[in-house]
């Protein structure tokens, strides 16, 4: 069963998530435009990878221990009506392109693993109308449909998609809000 959410449902869960974020000293912020709420987090990411033996991969070697700034936005997609992540990554204030993003988030340089990056695409931010990268939302509804018991679907979504795809990790302390008294 595929699920969808209304903007009102999203707004309520986003506020609940922000409360939790504050309690565990995470840095999520709220942005709002005409009753449309979205969540923002800026994250400094130090890219540290073991040097590769593969001398062909010059690009990857150059990226060793560099600092990236990643801007994550979590919002309800206006057509698919599921939460998704929009993000941009900057190196020295310059936007980095999709190829570098693959290198940044991929655990190894196994070409087959790149397949999952077909899930990422360039897309205009539907609230700010600026270019962003987006996790393509077409399967998210189906995946979240398997977790209908969850207390907060935004957290479920972030746990499922954040760490594995776009380097967005949630603090383990969020767990404590899910343990029943």
């Amino acid at each position, binding site marked *: 069963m595929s699920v969808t959410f209304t903007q009102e449902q999203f707004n309520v869960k986003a506020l609940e998530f922000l409360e939790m974020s504050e309690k565990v000293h995470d840095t999520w912020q709220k942005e709002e435009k005409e009753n449309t709420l979205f969540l923002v987090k800026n994250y400094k990411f130090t890219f540290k990878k073991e040097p590769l033996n593969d001398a062909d991969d010059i690009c990857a070697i150059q990226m060793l221990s560099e600092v990236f700034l990643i801007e994550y936005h979590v919002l309800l997609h*206006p*057509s*698919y*009506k599921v939460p998704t992540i929009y993000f941009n990554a900057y190196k020295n204030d*310059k*936007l980095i*392109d999709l190829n570098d993003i693959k290198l940044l988030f991929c655990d190894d340089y196994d070409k087959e693993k790149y397949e999952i990056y077909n899930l990422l*695409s*360039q*897309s*205009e931010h*539907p609230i700010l*109308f*600026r*270019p962003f990268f987006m996790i*393509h939302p*077409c399967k998210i509804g189906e995946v979240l449909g398997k977790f209908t018991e969850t207390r907060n679907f935004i957290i479920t979504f972030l746990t499922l998609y954040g760490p594995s795809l776009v380097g967005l990790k949630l603090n383990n302390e969020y767990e404590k809000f899910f343990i029943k008294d």
Partner: protein
Amino acid sequence: MANDREVLKVVWEGKIPAKFVIDSNDNDEVYYLNLPRISYFALCTDKVKKHFQRHIEKEDDIWFSYMDVPLKFHIPIGVIYDLLVSDNSLPWQINVHFNKFPEDILFKFPNKDVIESHFLSCLKEADFLKHKGQVICQLQKKDHKQLFLGLQNDKFDQFWAVNRRLMETTEQENGFKNLPLRCYTDDGYSYLQKLITPLTEKGQKKTLKDLLVEFSTPAKKPVGAKTHGIEVPLETELQWLSETLSYPDNFLHLCLIYE
């Protein structure tokens, strides 16, 4: 649908004569192109680049602007013209730039594959709204390719042979589930997007007039809408509008007119 073939053809053949000038004081070279309204600037950069090649000092990304506003690569050309050129002057004078690419405003389209994948992602989103994505899933990879090639090479029959299936509705449905549409406000490129059904709760066909009500706010009330350079009559049915006047990305792009 069959009777509307002529309308589809006229929409497909809409052109805007454009005059490209290079953004520098000591150069008065110009280049003229007849731009298809339904196409994208991303698909004509090669021609323009080739023409101005000898003026490029260093290889950087090409981009265009009109009256200091960068022209978006991923929005159909006709939509940009209707949004930005208020006096309808022709030829459309476009500035060509080879440096200071405004990456906070424009997407980079380094090659045709990236444009194609963006185009397909729009079709996918539109079909999700119309048929829960079920029709686009049934199409094969070669059909997807045919849609893009039809657009890129300006082949009406090639495009519509496949697009016809994306525009179909069954008799029981009596229209799409939701209509893929974007309503541009009079604030630059910003637009509104909502779930809009083709029928009212009582099962009557909605018209453009009903749509304008749905996009009204206490502060701003649209009184009309423009697409493909024409003002659409208020009594036009939305389902017909979607089937006939959508751009190749399967979205209706309506520029709202305010009082």
